[in-house]
């Protein structure tokens, strides 16, 4: 079930896996490299103000990109609407793209979240700012 403020515009064709794969393939060199270099050290945690205020691991930048763009690459773009809505919740609700996050290995985390948002929007999943 999508979060109430994540809009999910369904089309007759449903999720277009080819469209998702096209975006994934376009970005794959940098995205896959970033996913591989991530040492899962969690040192990025304190750089996200959402994590420092909640102490909830789901707000860690690494957790966010592993479970959004990482999940999309693992599934090679083959994801259902419910799964994409979960990813939409991560990239739209758990991140404001303030770019405060840092990584000791220099991984560009906001870029990965932005690509996640691009994929979600391409399938009609986006955040509604006038809904609580």
């Amino acid at each position, binding site marked *: 079930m999508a979060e109430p403020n994540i809009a999910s515009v369904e089309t007759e064709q449903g999720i277009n896996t080819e469209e998702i794969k096209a975006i994934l393939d376009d970005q794959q*060199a*940098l995205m896959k490299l970033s996913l591989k270099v991530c040492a*899962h050290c969690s*040192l990025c945690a304190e750089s996200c103000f959402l994590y420092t205020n909640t102490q909830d691991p789901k707000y860690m930048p*690494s*957790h966010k990109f592993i479970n959004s763009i990482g999940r999309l690459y693992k599934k090679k773009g083959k994801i259902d609407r419910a799964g994409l809505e979960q990813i939409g919740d991560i990239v739209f609700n758990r991140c404001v793209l303030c770019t405060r996050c840092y990584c*000791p290995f*220099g991984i560009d985390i906001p870029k990965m979240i932005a690509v996640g948002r691009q994929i979600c929007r391409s399938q009609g999943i986006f955040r509604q700012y006038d809904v609580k």
Partner: protein
Amino acid sequence: MYDLVRGPLVWVSLIVFIVGTVVQVIRFYSLSKKLGAPSLQVRVRPAKKNRVPIQSFDGAFHDWLSRVKLTILGISPVTIIISSVFHVCLFVTPIFLLGHNELFDLSWGFSLFSFSEAITDFLTQVLLLCAAFFLLRRIFQPRLRAISSPYDFLVLFLAVMPFLTGFLAYHHIFDYRTVMILHMLFGELMLMAIPFTKLTHMIFFFLNRFIIVNEHTIGKGTRVYT
């Protein structure tokens, strides 16, 4: 088995490691481009005449300390210090080990300087303690559990086993020959794994932090990702 790991497998692992590293570096350069004249200055240091003069040692020291507190050393001091010690031991121990240098001398007629075996034994034990800290951290800290998978434990195992088997061999714990074969095998596996697993952070730490321009570039960066 001994002849295989002592001979051809050493070459295979070195070649895979070197070729893999070169491939990763080429990949980095193909994914990035030289930065033209930057439109925004990432970090600006005031001109010498505009800098605040040092009033006292105490003031200058506390200014420096305030800056350090904002770095990752200030935010996660225990992890960073243990990680730094671990990585120093990781590089120093095998390179300056007497046993390794003896083998180099036998094979190629030259070797590097060696520490005494007491020192390298101590460094190995320090490294194993640091690795134990990493393992416990990954098991017991919720923020690490949230992003960990068997892959992380496997890579830690792969990185630590050459040192653990080396320690066991040096102290003649278990059958020496078997432990030595395992030592060489794990060393070779670790070398081969470096370019293809998350151990590649060894290469990319330097590429990303020194060459790519961002808020946390060390020194002057010259490239950006395209």
